[in-house]
């Protein structure tokens, strides 16, 4: 298949978000505060990895150079990953992980809703399937955000610190990328900037209910979706790629 480079990049961005946040979220496995959340987080991490497999397989086919999901997931260099910086930031505490998952899943939910009508039928099918997962993640993490924010003094302080830290990275979700217009014009998917108002309409009331203060927007911008990542990305990739780099093509 010979898809346009913008089309491939668009799918890669969505797939890399799922891959990298899936890897981050999986770090909780065996470390969550209670058994119940340990399973919830592992389930959600595996949902994201499942989405990444479908999306990267699709991106590989669009590219038409014979790269499969494994080659795309494990054998690219840092600058070739297109995920939002938000997805690669360290978990820190449970509060930050839940605030991040809420910010991200709410974005994914809106994106998948719009993608369900994509002119790229395969992408539309993946989005329709993944939408239910994103919806659950947004609900579960959102319920936690309210309970932590409107909880004890300690949980409120941690949730507020998490929101203060993460909020500046959310601007990147809606930053235009080259080729946005072409992708939107071809009916493949929405331009990123068109999701912002709907996203704010979802997350701002939730933070209000959580009694958390949303910081003002600043000129700070992150650029993970263009391949310029934070210092945390290399460490994450070292963990993610190490098996495949050490034992190329290993199977079990």
């Amino acid at each position, binding site marked *: 298949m010979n898809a346009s480079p913008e089309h491939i990049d668009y799918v890669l961005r969505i797939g890399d978000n799922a891959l990298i946040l899936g890897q981050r979220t999986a770090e909780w496995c065996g470390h969550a505060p209670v058994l119940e959340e340990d399973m919830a987080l592992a*389930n959600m991490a595996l949902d994201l990895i499942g989405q990444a497999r479908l999306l990267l397989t699709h991106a590989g086919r669009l590219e038409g150079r014979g790269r499969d999901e494994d080659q795309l997931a494990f054998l690219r260099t840092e600058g070739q990953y297109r995920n939002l910086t938000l997805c690669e930031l360290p978990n820190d505490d449970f509060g930050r992980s839940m605030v991040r998952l809420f910010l991200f899943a709410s974005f994914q939910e809106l994106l998948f809703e719009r993608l369900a009508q994509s002119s790229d039928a395969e992408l539309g099918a993946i989005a329709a399937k993944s939408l239910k997962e994103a919806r659950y993640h947004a*609900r579960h993490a959102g*319920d936690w955000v309210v*309970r932590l924010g409107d909880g004890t003094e300690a949980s409120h302080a941690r949730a507020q610190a998490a929101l203060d830290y993460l909020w500046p990275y959310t601007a990147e979700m809606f930053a235009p990328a080259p080729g946005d217009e072409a992708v939107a014009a071809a009916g493949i998917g929405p331009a990123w900037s068109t999701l912002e108002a709907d996203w704010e309409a979802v997350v701002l009331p939730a933070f209000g209910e959580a009694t958390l203060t949303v910081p003002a927007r600043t000129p700070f911008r992150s650029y993970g979706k263009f391949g310029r990542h934070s210092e945390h990305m290399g460490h994450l990739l070292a963990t993610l790629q190490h098996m495949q780099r050490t034992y190329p093509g290993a199977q079990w």
Partner: protein
Amino acid sequence: MERKEWPLWEVFVRSRNGLDHKHCGSVHAPDAKLALQVARDVYTRRQEGVSIWVVPAEAIVASDPDAKPELFDPAEDKIYRHPTFYKLPDEVNHM
């Protein structure tokens, strides 16, 4: 800092439409809404269910294990309570 255990919730899962909810275990959760969510994650991750009930464990009134003799033993020799004295037509199976 005060450390409190989350309340315990008993989890009942209906595996298919038409079947009863069956008790399958318990979870700790801070409130009912999250109890349902973690019950979903702990007990239905392999397609075990189509419906979940969670009940605060403290709302369940249980029989006293020490009262077993007076509660259950008297039924032991009342075989006439089993409907085994009726002749059933052959067409009625699986009674």
